């Protein structure tokens, strides 16, 4: 549960510091690189600048979310996650475009993979902001895997985009294919447990399981189940 003074003290303080540090480091790094040797790796340096802007907007969004307005943060964190996955996959497939690393190269390995973890941590925090989103352990687990399922779909779609649309190789699919498989199976298990725990009717339970098939279906189902009181 969120205490009444959640706007002041809470996990968002840590998120805000990390976002501030990343805004500064990514921004300073890309500006110095663009100013002194832009021709060496223009794509990588420009992408780093884009990452810095995303972190600045993310910081702003989290501040707003801490005061109760979560919509902007929710959008920005998904954009950030998509950016990390896209740039990370691109850097694995098109080595030539990255003679020097960008912030999100190889999913942010230069920064200890924090760039890949940060948006997920932010999205998980956002879900605790809504009082009517709090629930028991099973419901909380369902929310986490529903989000993870959607995130792994995003990764898999990124990989498929580079494989089939850009024709840049199957590296991304090889990374996210198995990952998506594991998360998909966990979703099915947790959804079945939640079905039992929340005493959903048969049609609702079947829809919950089927929601894992289309991309982002789990998020749509979760939102519907929350609004119709089936996650209380």
């Amino acid at each position, binding site marked *: 549960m969120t205490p009444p003074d959640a706007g*002041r*003290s*809470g*996990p968002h*303080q*840590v998120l805000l*510091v*990390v976002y501030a*540090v990343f805004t*500064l*480091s990514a921004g*300073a*790094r890309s500006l*110095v690189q663009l100013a*002194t040797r832009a021709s060496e790796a223009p794509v990588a340096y420009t992408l780093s600048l884009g990452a810095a802007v995303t972190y600045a907007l993310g910081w702003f969004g989290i501040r707003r979310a801490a005061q109760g307005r979560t919509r902007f943060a929710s959008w920005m964190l998904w954009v950030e996650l998509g950016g990390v996955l896209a740039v990370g996959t691109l850097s694995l497939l098109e080595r030539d475009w990255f003679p020097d690393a960008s912030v999100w190269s190889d999913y942010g390995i230069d920064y200890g993979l924090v760039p890949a973890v940060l948006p997920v941590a932010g999205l998980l925090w956002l879900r605790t902001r809504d009082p009517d989103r709090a629930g028991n352990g099973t419901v909380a687990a369902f929310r986490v895997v529903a989000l993870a399922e959607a995130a792994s779909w995003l990764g898999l779609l990124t990989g498929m985009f580079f494989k089939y649309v850009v024709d840049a190789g199957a590296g991304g699919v090889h990374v996210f294919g198995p990952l998506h498989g594991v998360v998909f199976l966990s979703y099915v298990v947790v959804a079945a447990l939640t079905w039992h725990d929340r005493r959903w009717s048969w049609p609702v339970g079947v829809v919950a399981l089927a929601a894992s098939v289309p991309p982002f279906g789990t998020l749509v189902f979760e939102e519907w189940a929350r609004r119709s009181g089936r996650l209380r």
Partner: protein
Amino acid sequence: MAALDQISWVVVGYAVLVALAAGWSAYRWRERPPWLDSLAWMLEGLLVLRAVAGFGVLLSGHRPDEVSTHVGYLIASVCIVPLAVRSVQDDHGGWSLGVVAVAAITVAVISVRIVMTL
């Protein structure tokens, strides 16, 4: 240069110690003890010493491979701890420990980068 490297490595070790102390406090008390702020300010003292020595070396004529990056790290290293500690001045809750820990780890990473770019 050897002396500068030594101060930098002492900073790294001490910053890690501050981060661990923050983690221990979170585990033990779930709030920020006053002595942790003192530890953090002592870390800041070391960082100022390191930055002054670093600028002294620059002024004496030594040129690192990437001057702008190196100077950027020197300036950033002394700004982070005061900003972090000030931002949680009136708040001694458990999450403020995370703020101090993140600041300490950031300073440790920057110190390693300072040695690498010298």
